C-alpha cells in the first residue's frame, strides 16, 4: 500500500515534468484547431515552464510552515483541475491561462512529492525515486504527447493526467501529520537532536540551512536549454518540416528515452564517478545536437544515432546533477525546488534563444526553397499549361503557409492532368517535397548548433577551478 502511494506520487512528478514538453507534438494541431499563430501557440509551452520556474522556489518556502501532505495534495488537485480546464479550453487565452495554473499546482505537487517520498522511503531512496521520475517524465513527455495526439486529439494529453492526479491526492493526504507542522519545525527538531548529540551543554539550537549549490543548478539550466533543441525543435522539424505524423514523430523520438535508460547501466559497468558521468553526458548531448545539425538526409534512420547520443547524455547528466545539487543539502525540499526552478528556467532560456533563431532561419530559407521549386517546375517534363497550373497552385499554397514550412499537397490534389503526365506530376511532387525537407533541415541547423554550444557551456561550468595557491 505504501509502495502504491509512493508510485502514484512519483507518477505525478513524472506527469508534471513531462508537461514541460508533452504538448510539443500537439502544437500544430492546437494551432489549427484554436485558429492561432505560431508565435502565440508557443506560449502553451513557454507559459508552463516559465510559471514553474518562477513558482518552484517560493512554493518550497510555503512547505516550511505548512503540512507538506496537505500542500502537496492541494497542489496535485490544482494541477488536476487545471489539466481538465486545458482539455476543454476553447481558445488559446484559456489554454495558456490553464497551463499557467497547471504549473502553479505542479510546482507544489513536485516539491511536496519530494518530501513525501523521502518520508516514505528514506532520504536517499526517496530522492532517487523523485529524480528518476522527473528524468523519465522529461524524456517520455514528447513521445506520450505525440501518440495521444495521433490516436485521439491534443485534448487527450490533458485528459489522461486528470485520473493520475486525482488518485495521487489521497495518496498524499495519507501522509498528513498529526499536528500539521511544517518542515521548518522538522528541521529544527532534527538539528536540535544533532546539536545536542555534538554539544550537549549549549542551549540554543538553530535550524541548519545550506546555501544553494550554484554550479550543478547552472549546469542543469544550461543542459535543459540545450535539451530544448532535441525535445522541442527536433520534434517540430519532424512534424512541420518533414511532414511526419505525430505518431511517427513520437516513435522516432522514443530513441531518446530508450537511450536514457541505458545510461545508468553503462555508468555502472564503467564504474564512473558523478563528475565523469556529467561531463561525458554534456559531451554526448553536444555531439548529438551537432549530429542533428548535420543530417545527411531527411531519412529517419539518420536521426537515430544523434538522438541516442542525446538520450545517453540526458541519462548521464540530469540524474547526477540533480543529486549533486541536493545531496546533503538542507532543507531538502528547498534545494529540490531550486533544481526544478533551474531546469524550467533553462527550458524557457532555450525557447527564448532558439525560437527566434529557427523562425528567422525558416524565413530566410524560403527564397532558396522557392528558387529550387521554380527550377524543378520549369524543368519538369510537362506541358506548358500544366506547369503554369502547378505554379499557380504552389504560389497560392506558399502564400497561405507563409512563415511555416508549406504543405504542397493541396496544390497537386486540385490538379487535373492527362493520364500520360501523371507519373511526371507524381515525380515532381516528390522532388518538390524533397526540396522543402532540405530547406527545413537546413533552417533548423543553427538552432541545433546553438543547443550544442549550450551543452558545451554546461560542460565548461562543471570543470572545477583550481584554487589560487593550491597545487
Amino acid at each position, binding site marked *: 500500500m505504501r509502495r502504491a502511494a509512493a508510485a502514484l506520487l512519483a507518477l505525478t512528478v513524472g506527469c508534471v515534468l513531462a508537461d514541460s514538453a508533452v504538448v510539443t507534438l500537439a502544437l500544430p494541431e492546437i494551432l489549427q484547431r484554436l485558429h492561432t499563430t505560431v508565435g502565440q501557440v508557443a506560449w502553451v509551452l513557454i507559459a508552463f515552464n516559465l510559471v514553474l520556474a518562477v513558482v518552484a522556489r517560493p512554493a518550497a518556502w510555503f512547505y516550511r510552515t505548512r503540512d507538506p501532505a496537505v500542500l502537496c495534495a492541494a497542489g496535485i488537485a490544482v494541477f488536476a483541475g487545471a489539466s481538465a480546464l486545458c482539455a476543454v479550453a476553447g481558445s488559446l487565452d484559456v489554454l495558456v491561462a490553464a497551463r499557467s495554473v497547471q504549473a502553479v499546482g505542479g510546482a507544489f505537487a513536485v516539491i511536496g512529492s519530494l518530501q513525501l517520498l523521502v518520508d516514505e522511503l528514506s532520504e536517499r531512496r526517496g530522492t532517487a525515486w523523485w529524480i528518476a521520475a522527473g528524468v523519465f517524465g522529461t524524456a517520455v513527455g514528447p513521445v506520450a504527447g505525440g501518440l495521444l495526439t495521433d490516436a485521439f486529439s491534443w485534448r487527450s494529453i490533458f485528459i489522461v493526467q486528470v485520473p493520475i492526479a486525482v488518485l495521487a491526492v489521497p495518496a498524499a493526504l495519507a501522509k498528513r501529520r498529526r499536528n500539521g507542522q511544517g518542515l521548518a519545525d522538522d528541521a529544527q527538531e532534527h538539528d536540535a537532536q544533532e546539536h545536542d548529540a555534538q554539544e550537549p551543554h549549549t542551549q540554543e539550537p538553530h535550524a541548519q540551512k545550506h546555501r544553494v549549490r550554484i554550479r550543478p543548478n547552472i549546469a542543469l539550466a544550461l543542459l535543459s536549454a540545450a535539451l530544448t533543441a532535441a525535445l522541442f525543435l527536433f520534434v517540430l522539424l519532424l512534424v512541420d518540416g518533414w511532414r511526419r505524423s505525430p505518431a511517427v514523430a513520437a516513435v522516432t523520438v522514443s530513441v531518446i528515452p530508450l537511450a536514457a535508460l541505458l545510461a545508468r547501466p553503462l555508468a555502472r559497468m564503467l564504474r564512473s564517478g558523478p563528475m565523469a558521468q556529467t561531463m561525458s553526458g554534456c559531451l554526448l548531448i553536444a*555531439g548529438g545536437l551537432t*549530429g542533428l545539425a548535420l543530417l545527411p538526409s531527411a531519412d529517419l534512420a539518420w536521426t537515430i*544515432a544523434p538522438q541516442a*547520443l542525446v538520450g545517453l547524455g540526458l541519462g548521464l547528466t540530469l540524474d547526477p546533477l540533480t543529486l549533486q545539487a541536493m545531496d546533503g543539502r538542507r532543507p531538502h525540499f528547498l534545494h529540490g525546488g531550486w533544481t526544478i526552478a533551474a531546469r524550467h528556467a533553462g527550458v524557457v532560456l532555450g525557447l527564448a534563444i532558439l525560437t527566434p533563431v529557427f523562425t528567422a532561419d525558416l524565413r530566410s530559407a524560403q527564397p532558396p526553397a522557392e528558387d529550387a521549386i521554380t527550377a524543378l517546375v520549369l524543368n519538369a517534363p510537362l506541358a506548358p499549361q500544366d506547369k503554369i497550373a502547378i505554379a499557380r497552385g504552389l504560389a497560392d499554397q506558399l502564400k497561405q503557409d507563409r512563415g511555416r514550412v508549406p504543405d504542397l499537397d493541396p496544390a497537386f490534389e486540385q490538379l487535373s492532368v492527362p493520364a500520360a503526365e501523371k507519373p511526371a506530376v507524381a515525380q515532381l511532387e516528390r522532388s518538390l517535397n524533397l526540396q522543402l525537407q532540405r530547406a527545413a533541415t537546413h533552417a533548423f541547423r543553427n538552432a541545433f548548433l546553438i543547443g550544442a554550444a549550450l551543452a558545451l557551456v554546461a560542460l565548461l561550468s562543471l570543470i572545477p577551478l583550481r584554487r589560487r595557491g593550491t597545487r
Partner: protein
Amino acid sequence: MTGAARLRAGALPALAAVLVSGVLAVQLANGGGHYSPLRPADSCVAAPASSVSTGIDGLTEELVVTGLAAAACQIGVSREAFALQLAQPGVRTDAQINALRTGLLTAVDSLKAAGKLPRASQLAREAVDASNLSGLRKAAIRAIPDALIDKTLTTDDVLRRTINDLDLRTLLANLGNRHNLTTQVDTAVTKAVMERLADDLH
C-alpha cells in the same frame, strides 16, 4: 588517485568522445552539412532547354525558358528568381519588361544558332490549324506551296517581329488563360507575317 582509478574516471569520457566522433564522421562522410535546397544554375551559363510538347507549344516553351535565362542574366539574378518576380501580382517594371523582351530576342538567336527553329511553312501551317480563321481563308493559305512560304518568310524574322510587337504585360497577365493567351499570340504572329509580306511588296 591510483592508475586504475584514473583509468576508470577516463573510460566514460573517452567512450563519449569516440561515440560522438564516430557519429559525426559517418554523417559528414555521407554528405551531412550539405543537405540544403538545390542552388539555381547561373542564368548566364547557357543550359539546353527542352520541352515535351511539339510544334508551336514546344517552340514557345523553349523560347520562353531560354529567354527567361537570358533576361535574368541581363539583370543579374537567377532564371528562377526572375520567373518568381514576374509571377508576383502587381505592375511589372519597365526594366523587367525590357529585360524579358531582350531575353526572348536573344533566345531566338540561340535557337536559330542551334538549328532548333522550324521552317516558316511548318510554323504557318500549324498556326493556321490552330487559328480562328474561316474555313475558306484557311484553305486559301493551305494552298500556298511550302517552298513559296519558306522563300518569303523566315521563322526567326517572324518571331522577332512578334516579340517586338507583343504587349508583354498583357501576355504575363494572360498566362493563366489559355484562350486569351492563344488569341494574343496568334494576333501578334499574324500581324508579324503581314508586316513582313508588306515589307517585301514595298
